């Protein structure tokens, strides 16, 4: 009898241990996912912040550029650099066949002409002289140099030819290949060529969308929250508004994309693919989030504040605007920032309103076509070229960086400025 009891007790304790173990492993799993996730993004992405350059000696021969003697600055600007640039690449291997010459040309980005031109415009006295010029390596060589590209594949299965590799290895030996910080990733717009693609256009697109979103959503949401929390009579209509807000907060984001497409583009004829439409769509999406946050922080202001103001003879409107609202601002602001962070990461609605179009200019206003950072991630992730994989991860790092900064900012505002009522 006693033995049985002990057995039962032991099995019950074991069950207790097991249950605790399940709980611990659940948390461990969730955190493991997070770690793998972040590790994966960083390990594939950090190389994108480096860019491979070929240092090639360029002989600025006036004849190859079809220039007269003593060309003016204007002449230099209008000159044809293409043949000079081609010649530069061909000079790397003077015995190259025509097919090999083509390979040589493809070792650098198609900006090579522009890069040589920039060099000469910086220093016109170079004419007739030879100088080492940094040329952007093609994205395949870039990947080879970073070790992301297997070299031992058979030649017909990789995009770099044996010949290109041979020349490239020679250049490496001569110290003519250099890896430097990839500034163009931040300053160039999107491009079909991975080595020239940057996030400037989508970054500006995101900034404009978020600004439009802020300008529309913040005032409307704050005013609506003030009305619902402070002024609204308790009746069926305000109940209906409240139910609406709660439901809107849970409507899938893609439905807002359909709203943008069906109403903003089709009915109001706003320009497609622009941050303006994107921002309006996102603002409708973040509206409920901000309203809910603002109402919560209005609710947290103790009634004694309102009563004191009313007792001093302030009107209801003055009480609200001079006392309640300012006191609720820290909570409202941090809620707004969190809502904007959500909007910043949103992709699906922006795809539907056409912000997925290929844009290779940097937008200057919310009315120019643009992409946004998450959409840029989607566009690059869908493209087949190997060079884009690290770009996607790097773009994700930039996006996550922004989200972290925004969330930290929201935390700081909340902790620093919010009054604790005890």
């Amino acid at each position, binding site marked *: 009898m006693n033995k049985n009891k002990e057995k039962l007790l032991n099995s019950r304790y074991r069950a*207790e241990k097991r249950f605790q173990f399940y709980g611990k492993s659940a948390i461990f799993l969730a*955190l493991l996912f997070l770690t793998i996730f972040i590790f994966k*993004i960083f390990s594939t992405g950090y190389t994108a912040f480096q860019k491979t350059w070929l240092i090639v000696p360029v002989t600025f021969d006036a004849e190859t550029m079809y220039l007269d003697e003593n060309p003016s600055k204007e002449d230099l600007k209008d000159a044809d650099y293409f043949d000079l640039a081609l010649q530069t690449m061909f000079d790397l291997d003077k015995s190259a066949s025509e097919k090999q010459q083509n390979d040589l040309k493809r070792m650098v980005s198609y900006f090579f002409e522009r890069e040589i031109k920039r060099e000469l415009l910086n220093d016109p006295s170079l004419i007739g002289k030879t100088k080492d010029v940094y040329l952007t390596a093609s994205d395949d060589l870039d990947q080879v140099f970073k070790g992301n590209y297997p070299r031992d594949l058979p030649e017909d299965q990789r995009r770099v030819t044996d010949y290109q590799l041979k020349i490239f290895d020679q250049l490496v030996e001569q110290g003519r290949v250099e890896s430097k910080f990839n500034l163009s990733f931040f300053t160039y717009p999107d491009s079909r060529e991975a080595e020239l693609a940057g996030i400037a256009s989508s970054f500006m697109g995101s900034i404009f969308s978020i600004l439009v979103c802020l300008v529309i959503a913040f005032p409307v949401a704050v*005013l*609506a929250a003030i009305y619902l929390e402070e002024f609204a009579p308790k009746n069926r209509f305000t109940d209906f*508004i409240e139910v609406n807000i709660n439901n809107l907060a849970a409507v899938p984001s893609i439905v807002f994309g359909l709203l943008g497409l069906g109403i903003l583009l089709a009915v109001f004829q706003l320009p497609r693919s622009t941050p303006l439409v994107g921002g309006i769509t996102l603002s409708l999406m973040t509206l409920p989030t901000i309203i809910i946050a603002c109402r919560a922080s209005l609710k947290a202001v103790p009634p004694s504040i309102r009563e004191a103001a009313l007792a001093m003879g302030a009107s209801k409107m003055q009480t609200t*605007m001079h006392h309640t609202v300012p006191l609720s601002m820290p909570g409202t602001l941090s809620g707004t920032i969190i809502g904007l962070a959500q909007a910043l990461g949103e992709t699906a609605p922006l*795809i539907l309103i056409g912000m997925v179009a290929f844009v290779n200019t940097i937008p200057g206003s919310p009315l120019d076509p643009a992409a946004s950072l*998450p959409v840029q991630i989607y566009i690059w*992730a869908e493209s087949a070229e190997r060079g884009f994989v690290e770009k996607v991860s790097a773009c994700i790092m930039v996006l996550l960086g922004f989200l972290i900064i925004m969330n930290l900012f929201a935390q700081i505002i909340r902790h620093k400025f919010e009054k604790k009522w005890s």
Partner: protein
Amino acid sequence: MNLVIFIFIVLLGFTSYYFGRKKAYSIQATNTRLTALPQFYGYYLAIWCAIPAFIIYSLWAIFEPSIVKLIILSDYSNQGYLDDELNLIYEKTKSLSRGQFSGEITPYLETSAEKYLNLRSIAQNSKVVLILAIIIASIVYGYKRISSNNRTREPVEKFLNAVLFTASLAAILTTIGIVFSLIFQTIDFFKVIPLFDFIFGTHWYPAKAFVRDASEPLDPSMYSDTFGAVPIFAGTFFIALIAMCVAIPIGLMSGIYLAEYASTKVRQYAKPLIEILAGIPTVVYGFFAALTVGPFLKDIGTAMGLEVSAESALAAGGVMGIMIIPFISSLSDDVITSVPQGLRDGSYAMGATKSETIKKVIFPAALPGIVGSILLGVSRAVGETMIVVMASGLAANLTFNPLESTSTITAQIVVILIGDQAFGDPKTQAAFALGMTLFLVTLSLNIFALRVVKKYREKYE
């Protein structure tokens, strides 16, 4: 030009505030008692100055383009053009008047363009005149009211109240906007495709709807067996199911552990860390699923002799499950913490262990709330777009093999609407019909879940 008018109105509003306040002080100087604080005089005048002008300004901006278009196209009205052709003519006219037109310039078009420019300048001038007139009239009226020391606080506060009320309508307007944007296209869609075929058809090939000459009338028989939504409903359900298989055990167990076992220190760090998972944009999850999880599963499958598609439902569903973990864990954490302590104490007093208490007392008590949180998670899973678009297939296969690719409602909407859309085409309308379905499904899930959670809260609070 429009911007100049706008800035002008705003500046005028600000200056009139100071004029109003100054007037109040001058009234005060004559030893008359003011009816309100001086700034209310300012607000009063500013509102009178800016708001009527601003209303006219916005109405004008909304209606001017369509009226101009009507006048221009009235020249072409009895020549038997179709609506689309008329729109094209109008677009051509506009770009010609801007001097950006590259195409054949017919004399007709030229006269239209001239007329267009003419109309625009007339409209612009009359707008300026009208707005100036209104500003002057309303300022004079407002100033008179102030000078005779009428009440100013009440009207100003009434106005503010009206503004607040209008803002609170935004939520309703958004809902109405969603319903309107979906409903017309959906009705048009069901005019061509019978509702029955949509709900019970088993073939979904929207690409087939492309092969149509726009000038020919619609032939509904062409679309039989094209828009049968069963495969995508099944795919949506299936991927959501996989996601919940990942999210429920992990989310629920971590919720329980955090609420019942974890020390304050663990809770303090683990909870926000898990919630980071909810803050990561879904496109990032999609990339992760497509780049890492999909190929990983494929490798494992090949090693085990299974055929695994690189874009499998399992990869998309699994990653989606990870995304939903924090929703379920924090909600169930909240729900479990709000179970009254008395229930726990009673159970302990009877000699139950902690896990027995949780399993037999707390869990049943918290069940409605937990069900609510799971339903909210399901509604997330059903509405999730980017993970499926990037990690699962885009072709709608009717399959329940997690290793094959399937498609969902959201993914199909993106597939159909990415790129250029032609409104009035059954294919585009199909996307809106799917959107409507999605909206209704998630809406009912949410309403139901919120109701369950609310009922539960009322029980214990």
